[in-house]
């Protein structure tokens, strides 16, 4: 691919998009990239609001996701069970362990569903996508953490700090119970270091591989001693803290954990590491911008004290972000694909945890359970035969009538509640399709293409769809349904 973005100089690249280039295409590109979809209505709204005001609208106001009820009760319950675990007979202990597992599992499922419902809302979507980005850098996961309450705390912490400086966020994350558990920070004690957290802090959170020595890690691990979890909260155990002198990045001192984070952020690699991750997430997984472009962005970020809000603004308003080279060619993550579908089709999230969470799992992105501490690599890695089959299956399920008789009692009750609360529209119904069936074929096909696809050269697609809709005399509603369902399975719809 020719690196066309280089027609912008490294300096000009990060300047704001000229007003003359702010149009419907740029507005829909912005919406698809910061969020999950760009329906014509929303595009119009954003176009009128303007670029800067749109960024403020989506990122400027702190969002709070309420604690899922079962997370609350699991936390309470676990405390009682822990008593039994310590004092009970072997039989009681076994029972308590089972009970905790069951509570955790149910709480995780409810949490996953609640988050999906929260993040699918148009107003929250870009904010929560940013939370996902941070979750993909400052990674923790269910399999090792086990406790869904800690996952909730961790995510809330990321959400609270979306506009904070990065050092503040890193320091908070080093105290996050989920992280302490995930990277064995509790086992890191004076005289008995466990380097797991220190290594990932440098390699995956702040600097990147190759920008530190093994000795830096060993010494940093000593500074990060004494971090514990007590009663679901961070607790600093002074007696396990190694108070001695350490040399990290050639600087000697009686550093503590926060000092080490500051020292790492002082390294020049810190200026470009996170911005580069950010660009891989939002701009292009395939193209890594040339050093001069990254450095230019990194310097802006540092001048803004590593403020995450400033990074968001700089990048999403920049000329390079809107460069034609980067339009319509980012492979949607499973979450992006799923939420985008729901928003595009104007559907509510099915209120069935297993249904919803399995869809994400089968597409390769189980909720809060990345494959490892590196998180999801994304891009072409999302796509293989089995994840593609899962994407197709999801679409089929959204376009097939719900078989209420097959629901279990919990799901049935959840559906009734959803209907009562007017959020029970979970599949595309015949009625919805009939609304559009009066349109002329040509106009209808154009409508679908404009509605669902980024602006490509879509002539060939148009021809195929026209041929399909014109031929034969089968049930028209059925045909429209098939046409849309298949269009959403096409290569183009997998791209953003």
């Amino acid at each position, binding site marked *: 691919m020719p690196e066309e973005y280089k027609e912008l100089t490294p300096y000009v690249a990060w300047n704001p998009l000229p007003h003359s280039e702010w149009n419907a295409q740029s507005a829909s590109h912005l919406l698809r990239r910061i969020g999950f979809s760009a329906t014509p209505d929303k595009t119009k709204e954003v176009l009128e609001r303007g670029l800067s005001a749109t960024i403020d609208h989506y990122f400027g106001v702190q969002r709070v996701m309420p604690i899922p009820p079962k997370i609350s009760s699991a936390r309470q319950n676990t405390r009682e069970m822990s008593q039994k675990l310590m004092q009970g007979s072997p039989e009681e202990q076994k029972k308590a362990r089972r009970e905790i597992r069951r509570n955790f599992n149910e709480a995780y499922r409810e949490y996953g569903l609640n988050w999906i419902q929260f993040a699918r809302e148009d107003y929250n979507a870009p904010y929560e996508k940013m939370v996902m980005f941070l979750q993909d850098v400052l990674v923790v996961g269910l399999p090792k953490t086990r406790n869904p309450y800690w996952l909730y705390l961790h995510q809330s912490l990321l959400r609270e700090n979306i506009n904070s400086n990065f050092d503040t966020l890193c320091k908070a994350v080093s105290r996050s119970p989920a992280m302490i558990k995930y990277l064995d920070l509790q086992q890191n004690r004076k005289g008995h270091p466990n380097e797991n957290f220190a290594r990932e802090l440098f390699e995956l959170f702040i600097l990147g591989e190759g920008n530190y020595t093994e000795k830096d890690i060993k010494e940093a691990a000593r500074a990060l001693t004494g971090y514990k979890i007590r009663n679901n909260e961070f607790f600093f155990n002074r007696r396990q803290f190694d108070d001695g002198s350490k040399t990290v990045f050639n600087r000697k001192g009686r550093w503590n954990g926060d000092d080490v984070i500051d020292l790492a952020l002082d390294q020049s690699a810190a200026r470009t590491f996170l911005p580069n991750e950010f660009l891989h997430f939002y701009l292009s997984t395939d193209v890594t911008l040339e050093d001069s472009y990254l450095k230019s962005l990194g310097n802006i970020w540092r001048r803004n004290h590593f403020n995450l809000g400033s990074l968001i603004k700089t990048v999403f308003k920049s000329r390079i972000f809107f460069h034609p080279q980067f339009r319509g060619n980012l492979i949607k993550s499973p979450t992006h694909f799923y939420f985008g579908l729901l928003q595009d089709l104007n559907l509510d999230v099915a209120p069935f945890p297993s249904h919803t969470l399995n869809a994400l799992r089968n597409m390769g992105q189980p909720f809060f359970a990345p494959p490892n501490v590196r998180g999801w690599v994304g891009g072409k890695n999302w796509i293989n035969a089995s994840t*593609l089959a899962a994407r197709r299956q999801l679409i*089929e399920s959204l376009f097939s009538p719900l078989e209420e008789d097959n629901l279990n009692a919990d799901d049935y009750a959840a559906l009734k509640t959803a209907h009562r609360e007017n959020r029970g529209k979970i599949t595309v119904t015949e009625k919805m399709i009939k609304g559009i069936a009066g349109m002329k074929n040509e106009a209808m096909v154009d409508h679908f293409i404009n509605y669902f696809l980024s602006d490509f*050269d879509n002539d060939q697609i148009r*021809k195929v769809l026209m041929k399909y809709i014109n031929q034969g005399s089968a049930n028209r509603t059925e045909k429209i349904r098939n046409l849309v*369902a298949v269009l959403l*399975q096409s*290569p183009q719809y*997998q791209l953003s």
Partner: protein
Amino acid sequence: MKNDILQTPTTRREFLKSGLGGIGLVAFSSFAPAFLTQTTLANLPAPEKDRSILVLIQLAGGNDGLNTLIPFEDANYYRLRPRLGLRKEAVTPITHTLGFHKSCGELAELHREGKLCIIQNVGYPNPNRSHFRSMEIWETGSDSDEYLQTGWLGRYFDNKCDGAPPSEEPTGIHISNQLPQSFHSEQTHNLYGLSLQRNNRRPPVNQNLLEELIFHTPGDNTAGFLKHTMMDAMITEKQVRKILNHYRPAIDYPRTPLARSLQQVASMIAAGMETRVYFVSHRGFDTHTNQLNTHAQLLATLSQAMAAFQSDLESHSLQDQVLTMTFSEFGRRPAENNGRGTDHGTAAPLFIMGNSLKQSQIGRSPNLNVDTKSDLIHSIDFRQVYSTLLNKWFDCDPANILGKKYKPLSFI
């Protein structure tokens, strides 16, 4: 373009190359289903009946080699591992100084029968202790300060498949949610992935319309990648669905994800698929804390699954065609840590399983006369193993694929 409308392509590959420039929509739509049916005949005789197949088992997380193969007469081992060291009684000895972890009974038996070769102390110079970087080094076959974009098997596919008669069947199949880096290549190959979860294997609806949309997607950049992947997937899916649904293993596999993966591999090999490389993953080896039980479980799963797979292959008389190899990104530190676990280390043993092995052990146990902060020094470079496989098993010049010459081993 010299497309002749009468010259219909006969293979998927030709079809792709023709780019549809000269084939009208009508011609295409009547042509596609037949073409697709043809490729789903799984029982066509394979062009090479005695083709050699390699199955890789990735032990993700860094397997603790010293607690897999235990040097139970070495006092240093117990000095370094006062709590994790496995006593002689808890070991299945294979020599008077070395034994398998007791969870690996099946592997010990295979070793005794000459079907399992142990290659000791495998690693590479200037080891990297990051999971990802070290796994990347293993999968790309690079030096520790060299960054390669392609995997060692991907480069094998590039070399081997270019110019080879086109095959309708996948060159490589992985059973994992992500394409392994080992498979990354310069050229696009038909690589198929099965997910670890049980798939709903119903045929999808509206297949024809989707096929047309896919064929009419412009064939460049990311959209082109999606187009090719989707098309390959659709074709292979039909075939694989049929194979998996009809396979009757000769023995009962254990009920573990790894065993299920290997059973699926066996079914595809038994169906005569032309695929030469299979990749399965067994994860959870990153045992920083309380590792004794976890590690015992992981090894038991590995040992039982491998033995079941080998015995299934034997029952189908396929044992001569298949070699199975384990690998992990690194071993663990010789000294245990303070949490009854072990931290990221360097060299470790790997296993080769098959029917035509010439040796059952290569190399010696690592020297453990080291202090508690030290790491093992590898004695065999993992690329010597690759080189041997590429040369003797796949019959190609390893220097083309690995970039330089490595001293071959003689296990095959």
